[in-house]
């Protein structure tokens, strides 16, 4: 594929992520933090996010799956997930977590299950998209191109 075209598609793709509200400005800030001294910063952070989130979601499923749900266990997990998602700018995951926490406070098991599903859904969505994004970037790098700077003015 033409390098320019790839760069263009990467740009469009990134834009779409913001437009769909999957990511927010925090992700841009992350990208700004990435420079020559720290070239893989974003992917490192995101990978960490994936690892943590997989674990947290797993724990959450276990906790909520129990006969008697211990909300004291559930809440910190959700909080953590919320914190980490907001750190990388995964906006929709974060929002889902906010709702989740509300229901945790109400100790509404049924709603919590729903929220967990919602959070999972959002998480897999953002994971999917980000992986695609990184793949695109890698392709560009592999073909010797530069990753275009993200435009702010969309």
């Amino acid at each position: 594929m033409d390098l320019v075209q790839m760069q263009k598609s990467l740009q469009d793709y990134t834009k779409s992520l913001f437009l769909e509200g999957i990511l927010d400005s925090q992700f841009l800030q992350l990208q700004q933090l990435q420079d020559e001294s720290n070239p893989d910063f974003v992917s490192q952070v995101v990978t960490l996010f994936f690892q943590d989130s997989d674990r947290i979601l797993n724990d959450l499923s276990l906790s909520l799956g129990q006969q008697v749900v211990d909300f004291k266990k559930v809440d910190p997990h959700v909080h953590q997930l919320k914190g980490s998602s907001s750190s990388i700018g995964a906006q929709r995951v974060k929002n889902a977590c906010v709702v989740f926490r509300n229901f945790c406070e109400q100790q509404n098991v049924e709603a919590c299950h729903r929220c967990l599903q919602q959070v999972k859904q959002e998480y897999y969505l953002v994971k999917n998209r980000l992986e695609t994004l990184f793949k695109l970037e890698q392709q560009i790098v592999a073909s010797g191109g530069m990753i275009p700077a993200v435009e702010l003015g969309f």
Partner: protein
Amino acid sequence: MVKVTKLVTSRPIVVFCVLGFLVTILGCISTSNWLTTTESLINDVASFTGDLRSSLVSEFENIGKFSYPKTNLSTIGLATVIDSSYLTNNDTGFTNIQTQIAPLLFEAYSTIPQVSQVSYISRDGFLFSYIRADIDTSVAVYANSSSSSSGGDYTWYTQTVDQITGRLNGNATKSQPLDVTHTDWFQAAQRNNYTTAFLGTSLGGGDNETLIQSAVSLFSKKGVVLLGFSVKSLTDVLSRLSLHGEEFYMWTKDGTVLVRQGSLNASLFISNGSICFGGRESKSVRSQCIPENCSSSGYEVEIKRSKFQAFCSHLEVSGVPLRYTVMFPNDGGATRIKHQAKKALYQFFVVTIFVAFGWPVWFVWFMVRATRREMHMRATLINQMEATQQAERKSMNKSQAFARASHDIRGSLAGIKGLIDLCRDNVHPGSDLDTNLKQMNVCAKDLLALLNSVLDMSKIESGKMQLDEEEFNLAKLVEDVIDFYHPVAMKKGVDVVLDPHDGSIFKFSNVRGDSGKLKQILNNLVSNAVKFTVDGHISIRAWAQRPGSKSSVVLASDPQGVVSKFFKCMFCKSTDQTEISNSIRNNANTMEFVFEVDDTGKGIPMEMRKSVFENYVQVRETAQGQQGTGLGLGIVQSLVRLMGGEIRITDKAMGEKGTCFQFNVLLTTLESPVSDMKVRQDIEAGGDHISTPNLGLTVNTSLGGGSMNIRNLSPRFNNCLTSSPKQECSRVVLLLKNEERRRVTEKHIKNLGIKVTVVEKWEHLSYALERIFGFSPQSSMGRAECSLSCPSARELPLIGMDGIDSRSQLPKRRSNSFNAVVLLVIDTKTGPFLELYNVVKQFRRGLHHGITCKVVWLNESSTRVSERGDISCSGPLHGSRLTEVLKMLPEFGGTGLKETSTELQRESLLRHSFVADTSPKHKLQEEGPSSGFNKELGKTIMAPTASESETWFKSVRTGRNPIGNPEEEQGTSMPSNDEFLRGKRVLVVDDCRITIKVATGRLTKMGVSEVKPCYSGKEAVRLVTEWLTQREQQGSVNRLPFDYIFMDCQMPEMDGYEATREIRKVEKSSGAHIPIIAVSGHDPGSREAREAIQAGMDGFLEKEMKQDQLANVIREVESKMNAQATL
């Protein structure tokens, strides 16, 4: 009632039975009662009836016994008389009878009562008899031949008789003879000379009626005397007895029925001496016979289907035995009553049963129905309540969702604004894109403001509004607000004037409170005032006072309700707010600030004054052509109350136009009001300089304007300034267009102790100048000096002369340090510029050498002024600008002495005016998180974000006015954000690896040399403890292990607050203090943030760790640390 209903409904059958039982019992009791009554009644009636019957019977007997008792005797008497006459003459022939016996007979006939036949019948058959044939006719029947002798020729003759004499008259007619001598009764009488009585027909006469006859044989047995009485008369008597439906029968033994009386139409016969009813032969009707002996108790007979009680007895009338029977109908008297009673009883029973069953059934049914209805109503009510609750919940959720959404929108808007700013950085300034972006920014801001007002409303509604306390400069704030609206108002020709009143607002200008909300209040009120004022002015008065006494007086202007209203508004808020305001009240540093926004607009009608503070209310008449939601004043009122104050519309004096809003708020001042001592110390220590770093000048650079403030000096100090009579005084001449501004400015300058002359019209300017300074364009110079050095010689009123006593405190050494200055402040709008300029030029020329004249032109383009060597000021002349202008006076450290410095002076003011021109917009934009920091740095001059021009300005100022100290000047070279944290070492504590990673990235970018990640609170505590012990062992090292610790608040095991507390505990022994900055997902104003500060953290940062926020927080923390270190 409810219980009864419930009971009835739950067991209807039981209740029904119980009720039925009760009613039945009641019925039975009354029935038995009734029965006994009836019984006794019946008995009574029966006894009466019995009496009646017996009396009736006795009546019969009486009649029988006493009506005809003497007939026998009469007969016997007559027989005796005839006997005696017979004895005397022995002749028994008819002639003898006719002559001797007949008169006797007649005598008897006419004397014996009721007799209807008197006869003498001899044994031979001779007969002579008087018979009453009619009432007034009597006949005689006689037989003049013997029946035995003449064998067959026995004839009876009937002849009428003279009623009086008894003699026979008329013709004798033959009548059928009867063989009297051979009848039973004749034989019976003859046989034993015995009387006998019998019933028989009369011997003659008309109709042969039945007579009761009594026969007595003569003693000689020659004949028989016979008296007869009419049966009819007896029956007539009996008939005359009143019989009440009874049947009465009388008959003789041989079966002749004498009396038959009654309604009964039955056939009857006499058999065997007793009476029988019914056909004798008929088989269908059984005959009923009444037995002989039935006198004592009645005998029941049934005749023709009606029952009778029969009583029978014997009766002897004139010796004739008779029988009679009286039958009482059974359905009369007691029996009838009995019957009727029985019937009534049945009816009664029926009714009772009906009632006994009907009524409970009705009752139960009614109750059940009532209960059912009630249940239905309750169910409806419950449904309704549920619906209401649901609606409330929905509404609550909606408002929450709304607030959340608004929050999000605000976030997005903030993002847009940030992006616009970012874009503008990359855009060539002045290009179209830049303009567009600017406009976009304005639009976004408007949107944000709108959203904020809605959000405020919902916050207030949900009671979540809280005060965001921070330190700020109140005077500055007020001035900013006015400056912001000044240009808009000036466009309409309305001046907006800041009236410092007694200047107390400057004295306590550094306060702690919610500047944003105060600004919102003022903005709202001033913008309203500007909106509704067409001409005239708007003045904003502000002053401070001790809370309590005076404030309540101010508020209590409408007599009865205000105190209570005040309390009400205190209590209607949530309790903790009340506590807050109470604590504010009780705090010694709390001052009450009263603000008045006074316009000359249309005003608000009296009746609308209360309702304008309600939401969504606009005054119709004045709202024409104006926009707005009508939320403004409602929010304002809520905010004012939140700050512990009250807002109201004060009454203006008669004839004055417009509205005056007055409100008060409680704020904590940062300096104590009794700082006079300190002031004096400062003065003495300050040497040549009146204005000290602490008191005199405050440069608040954060707001971008670089505006300066002279805080109001204490009154005593003011007096000092004007105290020396020998000193040449400066004078200010004001030529201002707006009357209110003239008044306010004059008063303010007077309060400062400077002499003021106010000129109202430009034409009067030269005249005024001449009068003051003894100068006219044509006159000599000499007089000017004279007048200046001895100002009191003139008739002009001089200010400050009354304070002579206190003047001695003025340091004398200052007296020669400066020359008097004449400051002309001229508003070019008052007249043509050139003319004015000429007047000024003339004046300048004529001045004495020692007197400096300075001119400040208002509202004139700077170029035009500056080329003439003067100063221009285009902002409204009040507050900081006025202070700035006044600072040119030597009394305030102005540099008037050397001509060389005027250039600089001018330039600085020029600079200032330029900045003032553009400042309002910047001020709003830059009212950001940085302000807190800057206010903290209030006493230092420099702003870290100072732009180049400001830095330049500062260096000019500080070059001449040695206000700042060396340390502060270092501030000018504040590093940019990128290099902000160069070489620092930071500990980041968070359980989330990602957050640490991001924070590390960011901090590294900002120049941090070492970021130590730490994944739990415990570990952080351990690290710090370790290091501290190390340091103690090594002893000398005074460097902190980390310059900052970023601490996540919510962590498992040990959260941020606890970790902080632990660290602080550990630190205590060593005396170190590592700045800890809380990192949390919550808002900076939230409860968590306060908790963090309480836990001992120094700053608070949002989780996103935005670069500028990070920088601000670090600065804030730094300044705090410095402040502590210097203390």
